[in-house]
């Protein structure tokens, strides 16, 4: 019996010729990741267990991104703990203020993760790296602690759901619309414990940034991981970033899938998830008039260069609607610099938006854009749960950067075409 991409990567890292769904394996890891919220808990567990050394100081990435530059004394204490641990164990990929970016934009950009890798991260959006043709999944701090010591972890091989993509996206329709459409179709637990494999000619028409956005949000359908085949766009992206050798895996013709869906990309419309679940999607004819107070453009889902470029294209020459606040958050220093040099920041600032240093901040209701009672926000982030960005009675509408920018200008949920 043939194998899916996920099964091939798992087999290779478990030292097995083949694996099948539901099999329990012990697999070697290429990268173990943590951030400033999850790493302190992992470090406590690591030290409580009496571990003295990390398995490999070049295969652990600790990225301070959720609450930095530190928002308060407690978060400063947490980052201090991770900083000291990194120094003690000579962690090569430790990223602090000045070098840090949002972890899931940063690691691919820095070439730390690559095709064929087996990666765990104590952050649920670790699944983002599936865009590169890697197996990547989120875990908790205890698993992170154990893996920092041993360099391996146990897994149950997931069944794979295949998404056959055909056609090509229309202008301004992006990976965000695709993944929200899919979550709406299968539900927030529609891929629970499953791998989501994206296949077909439609994949090749999409940019790497679109693929990162899609892989990033498979967790919002409950998936263990999302995965893309490697093509020329993947290789071009890794070129100049990844210095180590990488492995390309493709699915066998006779690989078995637990379910298959066909999606014609040319039929995807602007898609927005209404409060309070990512599956609660609506296309423009059902939006109605949703007056908004704030727009956030950024996050591990949509804080890459093309995201900000799309938003700026819509926003160019316009002013924000009265009473609307717009916060732009480039995901990494590289994205920040490129936006600055290309004049994209001028467009945002002239429109009345603010530019933040890279941070997860408002996406998880940490800081830098918290919502008050009754406020409505259009965000390019990934979750619109109750209280996610602030007050339990605030509302979040998940959208693409182009829709978010149009909404900021018109003061209500709007499509780019409505901006004259």
């Amino acid at each position, binding site marked *: 019996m043939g194998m899916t991409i996920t099964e091939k990567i798992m087999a290779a890292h478990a030292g097995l010729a083949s694996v099948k769904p539901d099999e329990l394996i012990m697999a070697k890891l290429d990268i173990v990741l943590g951030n400033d*919220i999850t790493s302190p*808990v992992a470090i406590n567990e690591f030290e409580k267990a009496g571990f003295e050394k990390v398995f490999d100081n070049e295969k652990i990435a600790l990225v301070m991104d959720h609450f930095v530059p530190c928002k308060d004394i407690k978060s400063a204490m947490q980052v201090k703990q991770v900083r000291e641990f990194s120094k003690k164990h000579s962690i090569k990929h430790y990223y602090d203020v000045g070098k840090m970016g949002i972890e899931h934009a940063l690691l691919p950009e820095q070439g730390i993760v690559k095709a064929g890798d087996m990666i765990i991260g*104590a952050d*649920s959006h670790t699944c983002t790296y599936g865009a590169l043709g890697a197996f990547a999944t989120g875990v908790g701090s205890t698993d992170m602690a154990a893996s920092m010591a041993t360099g391996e972890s146990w897994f149950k091989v997931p069944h794979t759901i295949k998404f056959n993509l055909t056609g090509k996206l229309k202008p301004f329709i992006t990976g965000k619309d695709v993944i929200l459409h899919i979550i709406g179709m299968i539900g927030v*637990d529609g891929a629970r414990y499953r791998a989501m494999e994206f296949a077909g000619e439609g994949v090749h028409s999409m940019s790497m940034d679109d693929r990162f956005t899609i892989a990033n949000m498979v967790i919002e359908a409950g998936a263990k991981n999302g995965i893309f085949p490697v093509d020329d766009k993947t290789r071009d992206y890794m070129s100049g970033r990844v210095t180590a050798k990488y492995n390309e895996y493709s699915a066998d013709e006779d690989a078995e899938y637990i379910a298959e869906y066909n999606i014609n990309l040319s039929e995807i419309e602007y898609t927005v998830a209404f409060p309070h679940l990512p599956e609660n999607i609506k296309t423009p004819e059902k939006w109605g008039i949703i007056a908004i107070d704030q727009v956030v453009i950024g996050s591990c889902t949509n804080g890459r260069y093309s995201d900000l470029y799309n938003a700026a294209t819509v926003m160019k020459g316009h002013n924000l609607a009265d009473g609307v606040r717009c916060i732009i958050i480039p995901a990494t220093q590289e994205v920040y610099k490129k936006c600055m040099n290309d004049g994209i920041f001028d467009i945002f600032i002239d429109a009345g938006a603010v530019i933040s240093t890279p941070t997860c901040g408002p996406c998880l209701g940490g800081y830098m854009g918290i919502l008050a009672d009754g406020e409505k926000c259009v965000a390019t982030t990934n*979750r619109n749960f109750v209280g996610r960005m602030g007050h339990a009675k605030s509302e979040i509408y998940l959208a693409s950067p182009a829709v978010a920018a149009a909404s900021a200008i018109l003061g209500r949920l709007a499509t780019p075409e409505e901006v004259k």
Partner: protein
Amino acid sequence: MNKEGKVYKFGDNVDTDVIIPARYLNTQDEKELASYCMIDIDSTFASRVKVGDIIVAGSNFGCGSSREHAPISIKASGVSVVIAKTFARIFYRNAINIGLAILECEEASEKINDGDIITTDLSSGKITNITRNECYFAEPFPAFVQNIISCNGYINSIKVGLK
């Protein structure tokens, strides 16, 4: 091991943001995390819950973020076991790793009501509803998982195993 307690009932898709909002993730203190447990779905939960009480919920309990603070806050609040129709996978793994007892049982999830008094037996998976005089059966965990929970977490179970 039998656990008896009063039920707090919740619906489907209880996410980790309502279990413990990120604004409280600047601490690892278990008691402090417990004081905010469930605050955005039931702001009175943390003050009402007593040691041994039980959470019963619908499908996909614990969806969302990987924050281990979520099962930690539930456990530190005194909750002895969480019963749900299904659990989100990261929460499921985290709960076991930190030693929070969980059981998956569709029938229990549907028939148990808020305020019922129930007992659970993790070794057999038997759930007894004393209030309604009913029994439901969850698939019990294999012995090694029961051992992790009885050792109060994965790291502790390794330490116990090494002794």
